[in-house]
Each structure stands twice: as C-alpha cells, then as structure tokens.
C-alpha cells in the first residue's frame, strides 16, 4: 500500500483527474478552510489529488527598496507579493500538511513550461519534497482515457529542461520588467515629483515599438489619387457592370480619355475563360490560428479566446489549447472522437457523411509541437450548459476538425474579356463546383457566388454609361489584437501562453486608445523617450536573442546559469546608461505625460472667465467627477459642467453642432457614445436627457420593487 500525492494545476483539473483515477469513479472531496482536495483509491494505492491556482509561488527581490538595479530574487508564496492572491495561503498550507507521509509525488499539471514550473515549485516549496524523486504525468486532454493512460505510463522523472527554461523565463522577465519599470517611474518622480507607474518589459517594449511605428506611418501618410473606370451595359434586360482591365488609372486625363473612348461604343465579348481552383481543407487549429479565426468571426480578443479554450479544455471538451502544432498524430483515436461528435445533434449528420466516405485520415498542417497535438474536440459531451461564447468557440473547433476529413473544394472562376478598340474590360463570375470540406466548416467558410451573366462569345454590348471615380491610396491598417499577436509570433517574441497577455497590456497600460490600437499620447511619450535615449528596450533583437537562448536551455545546449548571468550583465549595462541620462529621460517623460493628461482631461478654455482651462475635477467630498475651470479650486471661477460617473472620458476635437460646446466621448463597458460638455442644457440633447431620465426612473423603480419583495 502506498500513498501518492498528485499535484494538478487548477481545481477543475483536480476534479477531472480524481474522477478518472478513482477506481469507483467516486472520489471524496475533502474541504478545509475554503479549499479542498480529493481522496481516491486505486488498486493498492491511496491517492491525494491536490490543486494549485496557477502559480503558487512568485519571485521577490532579496534586497529591500523600491529602486533599481535589483537583480537577486527568491521564490516566495504568491500571497506575499500579490494582495489578490490571498487564497493561495490556504492552498499552500493544505498541500504542506498533506505532504507528510506521502510516498510518491506525481506532477499532473499542464504539459508546458508554466505547468512544469508550477509542479516543480509546488513540490519544492510547498511539499518540501525532492523534485528529482517525483514522477510526471503527460497528457493533452483531460478525458478519462488520456488521464488513465498518463497515469499508467507516467515518467519516472520530471521534465527538467522545460523547468529550467521556465525558471529562467520568469527570472529574466522579472529582471527586465521590474528594473526598467522602476527606472522609468523614478525618472518621472525625481524630475517632477509625480508617482505614475510607467511600465515596460522585455516583450512589451518591442510590442509598443511595432504599434508606434505603424502609427507613425499612418500619421505621415499622404494619399495619392487614382481613378477607376466603370462601364455599364444592358444585356437581355439585365443591367451589368464591367470592370476596366487596368484597376488603377494614374492620371485624371487618362481616365477621362478612356471614358470618352468607351462611352456609347459597342464592345464585343472576345472570350470567356474559366479556371478551376482546388482548395484542400485548412489544417487543424493551433492556438495562434484559433485566436485569429475567433477574432475574425466573433471579434474575440486573443486573451479571451485563450481563456475560453482553457475552460473547454478543463471540461475535457477539447485538447490542450497552448499548442503550436497543426498536426494530429496517429495515436489520437479519431474514430472515438467522431463517434462522440456523432452523438451531438449539431454534428451527427456531418459525422455520418464523413464515416460513409470511410476516409478517416485528417489533413495535416506543417507546424509541429513536441508536447501537444493540434487543438481538436475530444468528443466528450458537455456536462454543463456552455456559455454562448464557449458554444461559439467549441463549434468553430468542432467544425474545423470535421472539415479535415472533407474533400477538396472546387471553385470555378469565370472571366469574360470584352474588347472595345484597344480597351479591354472584364466581367467576372464565381461558381462553387464542389463544396467538399466547406460543407462542414460552414458558416466559417462562406464564398459569395457570382453568376456570370448569360453572354456568349461575339455578343455585342453597348457601353453606357461609362464614368470614372476618383479614389485615394490608403494608409496601412492599424493593428487589431489578432494581427498584433500574429506579428509577435512571426518575430518570435513571447510564447504562445504570454503573447495574448502582452497584447492586452499595451492597451491596459494606456499606451493605446480604443480597440484599434491607436497609439495614445502616453504611448508616444514612452516610445519617443526610449527611442531617443535607450533604443535597446524597444529593439526586438534583444528579446529575440533571449528567447532563442531560453529555447537552447530547453534543448539542453545552454545552461540556465550562463543565460541568466549574461542577461543580468546586459541589463546592468542598460540601467547604467539609463541612470546617466535619468534627468533627460525624466524631462521627456514628464513633457509627454503633460501632453497625455491634457489630451485626456482638458476641455479647452473656460467660457466664463476666459482665463482658466476646463478640466476634469474630482470632488473631495463625494469623489464624483465633473468638469470645472482650473480657477475653481481658488474660488476665482465657478464654471462647472456635470459628467457621467461611469466609463472613460475622451475629449474630442470638435464642437457640438447644437450649442458649440466641446464634444467628448464616453466609453463604458457596454457602449460608446458622444455628447457635449453642456449636455444637460444643450437644446439639441433634451430628448436624450429625457430618455436618460426615464431609464433612471425605471431602474430605480425596479430596485424599489426588488427591495419590497
């Protein structure tokens, strides 16, 4: 009889693993001080299944003081460095208590860098166990079959190279993030006495730089004109639009000449050609393609997609989502997954079609991942009602999986060449000849069919009217969360687990405005300052080199100690150079911050006293915000305007069309709207105000009714 402790990463995973491992499928959940563990029986073994909450331990500096450089760290319980992580205290104490008299420790966290490190640190600091004697379960889905298989075939040793890589990643990220953020923040504090956290990091710096460079291109863009010629004709009573063979005409003169040449002339259908395009199914999803497709179809931010996919994984509905692989190895029981999906009414008909074809070899992509296969459904039925977002993502994953067994689709592109003297015009059509895999992937693979009008070669068409349209070249598009994440992946910055968070941080730090990744004045201030004084922080090169060294640790070709000491040396040089320019950096950041606050909080000159500036003020008594004159606090001017109390406020560079007062935008979690600072008195907004009053009365009535009940 032996006592095993199985360390899992999350409470949901612990429950699943306990359920799969208990021989009676009835593990008992033991609750202690708001946390719990599971007691299981398996053969002669007693199993204790405990859970972490992601990381239970974090790095902390060994030498006190909110300053830089600080390069020595130690691992401490997370609740010591993060107020919000109070629950980790009870979990660590529980694991500590249960670890006594355990014969074997088994790590069953997610199989990736973070999971392996979580297991290692829990063993070392909570269980006081020797990690070299611990065993490791590897699985890619939380289904019973995979868990049992992982338990029966567990490794005798932990995956130390992965742990070392995780270790150094945390240490380097801490070193760069903490020291650079402090350096920037202290530069502002020492210059102006303000305490405003100005954060940057190893990957955040280059990411900011990508956004800033794109923003510069957009702001410096000078559009150029070009002309498009369009001709129409009536054939067999059908109005048809023809496109001119040259898509962009460079000069207005040439466009006019073409229009003149074609107007009212007869054109002849010279030829009709068709081209068949065969398209095989898309490869299975990895995390990046799933995030990009979920953004395209549902507008989910990459971090949201990852969180939803993680929830589906913990419910054993899909395989592990943090994967780079676009391949499904032969070891995956495709038949079992299809049988499972066949029991779901949304997919039963499609599964039938696939099984009838009897080709159960999925299409594979190129990218691989040694730890996990591509993301795929497990075929397990949901044991709870999925949220609408989970349903959407699951459907996308399930259909992408089913499409892998479909035939290639065939699209026929038709083109009629219509000639008028030396000019050539086109008529285009598109017909789907065979839907193939698209029938499974619908509605995510929609192709708009366009019939070619009924015309034959040598038909004559009267071109009338013919005109030209002046258009302008467009600036490059701003990033969206999906395209920025894709760029980070292409540049090999961050990992599949961290990229989504970095993309979010650029916005949450105030470096960009709205969802379009438009650089804010604060983003500019930081970018400009770093660009001028410490370019290396923005350089993808520095962090890319570190990434490749961390990979080498994983491949066992470099040691953690060497990589860490080099990273420390480079950082100290950087900080030395920073310190020598601290005053200049501080001045530049302060100027940028002033611009930022002005853009966020200033609403132009005071209309009453003409001397002060209108700005956002918070009442010291009530904490409520309003717009007031800058002379308000000195009681020289009493001009005020009310403000909505919820949502972000952004002054706009335009005046109200009704009253002439400055407009501003309010962005709350649910909606975005524009109004003027005079909104309560503005003659054009009385209807709005009335609707708002009615809404408020209704809300108050509801609250009152609720209280009475």
């Amino acid at each position, binding site marked *: 009889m032996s006592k095993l402790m199985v360390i899992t990463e999350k409470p949901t995973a612990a429950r699943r693993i306990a359920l799969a491992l208990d021989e009676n499928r009835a593990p008992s959940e033991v609750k202690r001080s708001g946390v719990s563990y599971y007691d299981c029986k398996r053969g002669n073994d007693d199993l204790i299944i405990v859970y972490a909450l992601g990381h239970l331990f974090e790095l902390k500096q060994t030498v006190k003081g909110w300053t830089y450089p600080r390069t020595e760290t130690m691992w401490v319980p997370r609740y010591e460095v993060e107020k919000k992580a109070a629950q980790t205290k009870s979990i660590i104490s529980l694991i500590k208590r249960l670890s006594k008299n355990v014969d074997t420790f088994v790590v069953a966290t997610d199989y990736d860098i973070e999971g392996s490190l979580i297991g290692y640190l829990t063993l070392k600091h909570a269980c006081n166990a020797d990690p070299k004697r611990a065993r490791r379960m590897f699985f890619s889905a939380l289904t019973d079959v995979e868990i049992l298989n992982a338990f029966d075939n567990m490794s005798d040793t932990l995956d130390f190279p992965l742990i070392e890589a995780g270790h150094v990643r945390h240490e380097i990220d801490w070193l760069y993030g903490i020291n650079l953020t402090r350096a920037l923040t202290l530069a502002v504090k020492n210059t102006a006495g303000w305490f405003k956290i100005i954060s940057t990091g190893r990957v955040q710096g280059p990411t900011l730089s990508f956004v800033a460079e794109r923003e510069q291109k957009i*702001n410096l863009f000078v559009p150029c004109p070009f002309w498009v010629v369009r001709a129409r004709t009536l054939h067999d009573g059908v109005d048809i639009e023809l496109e001119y063979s040259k898509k962009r005409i460079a000069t207005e003169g040439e466009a006019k000449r073409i229009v003149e040449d074609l107007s009212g002339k007869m054109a002849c259908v010279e030829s009709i050609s068709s081209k068949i395009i065969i398209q095989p199914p898309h490869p299975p999803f990895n995390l990046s393609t799933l995030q990009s497709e979920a953004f395209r179809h549902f507008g989910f931010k990459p971090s949201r997609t990852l969180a939803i996919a993680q929830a589906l994984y913990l419910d054993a509905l899909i395989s592990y989502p943090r994967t780079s692989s676009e391949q499904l190895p032969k070891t995956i029981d495709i038949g079992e997954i299809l049988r499972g999906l066949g029991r779901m009414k949304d997919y039963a008909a499609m599964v039938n079609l696939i099984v009838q074809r009897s080709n159960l070899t999925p299409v594979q992509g190129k990218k691989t991942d040694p730890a996990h296969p591509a993301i795929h459904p497990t075929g397990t039925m949901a044991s709870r009602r999925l949220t609408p977002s989970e349903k959407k993502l699951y459907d996308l994953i399930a259909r992408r999986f089913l499409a892998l067994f479909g035939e290639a689709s065939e699209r026929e592109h038709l083109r009629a060449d219509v000639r008028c003297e030396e000019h050539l015009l086109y008529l285009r059509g598109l017909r789907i000849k065979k839907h193939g895999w698209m029938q499974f992937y619908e509605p995510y693979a929609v192709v708009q069919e366009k019939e070619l009008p009924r015309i034959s070669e040598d038909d004559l068409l009267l071109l009338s009217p013919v005109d030209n349209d002046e258009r302008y070249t467009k600036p490059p598009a701003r990033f969206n969360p999906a395209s920025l994440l894709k760029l980070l992946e292409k540049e090999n910055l961050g990992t599949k687990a961290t990229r989504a968070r970095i993309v979010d941080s650029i916005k949450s730090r105030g470096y960009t405005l709205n969802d379009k990744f438009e650089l804010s004045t604060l983003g500019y201030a930081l970018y400009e300052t770093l660009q001028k004084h410490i370019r290396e922080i923005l350089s993808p090169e520095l962090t890319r080199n570190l990434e490749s060294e961390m990979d080498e640790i994983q491949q066992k070709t470099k040691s953690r100690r060497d990589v860490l000491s080099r990273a420390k040396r480079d950082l100290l040089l950087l900080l030395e150079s920073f310190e020598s320019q601290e005053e200049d950096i501080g001045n530049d950041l302060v100027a940028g911050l002033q611009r930022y606050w002005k853009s966020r909080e200033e609403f132009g000159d005071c209309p009453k006293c003409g001397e002060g500036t209108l700005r956002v003020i918070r009442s010291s008594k009530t904490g409520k915000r309003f717009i007031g004159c800058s002379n308000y606090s000195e009681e020289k001017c009493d001009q005020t305007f009310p403000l909505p109390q919820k949502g972000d406020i952004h002054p706009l560079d335009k005046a109200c069309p009704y009253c002439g007062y400055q407009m501003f935008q309010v962005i709350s979690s649910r909606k975005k709207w524009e109004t003027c600072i005079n909104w309560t008195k503005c003659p054009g907004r009385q209807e709005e105000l009335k609707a708002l009053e009615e809404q408020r009365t209704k809300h108050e009535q509801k609250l009152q009714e609720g209280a009475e009940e």
Partner: protein
Amino acid sequence: MSFCAICDRVVVDQKEFCYYHQEALGRLQETFEDWRKASGIGWEEYLDKLCQIDETGQWVREVAEHIKSKDGPSTKT
C-alpha cells in the same frame, strides 16, 4: 528652446516644426508633384483636398491646415 508651431514638441534643427511635423511637411511637399502630374491641381487646392480626405495622416493634415491658415514660408507656388 523653441517649440513646434503645431504641437508642443521641441523643434528640430531650428526649423518651424518638431520632428514629426517636419517629416510630414517633407512628405506633403514631395507628394505634391505626384498630385500635380495626376490631376494638374495647384498647391492651395492640393492642401484643401488633403484636409478633406479621410485617408490623410493626422500630422500631414495638421501641417496642411497650418500652412493654409498661415500662408507662411512653407507655401509652394
């Protein structure tokens, strides 16, 4: 220390504008030749057009508006 005529950044090389607006002015002047060839318009009409078109970059638009309002040394004839 002199400041940009459009924003409050410091000017470069004792010119009228900061680095960004100076760069925008350069591009605006360079591209005028393309516009002139394409549609034969003059400098003032060009500036008017740039101020109206949505695609015009913010710094370029600010420079165009500044030149229009000032009719200053950046004017081409």
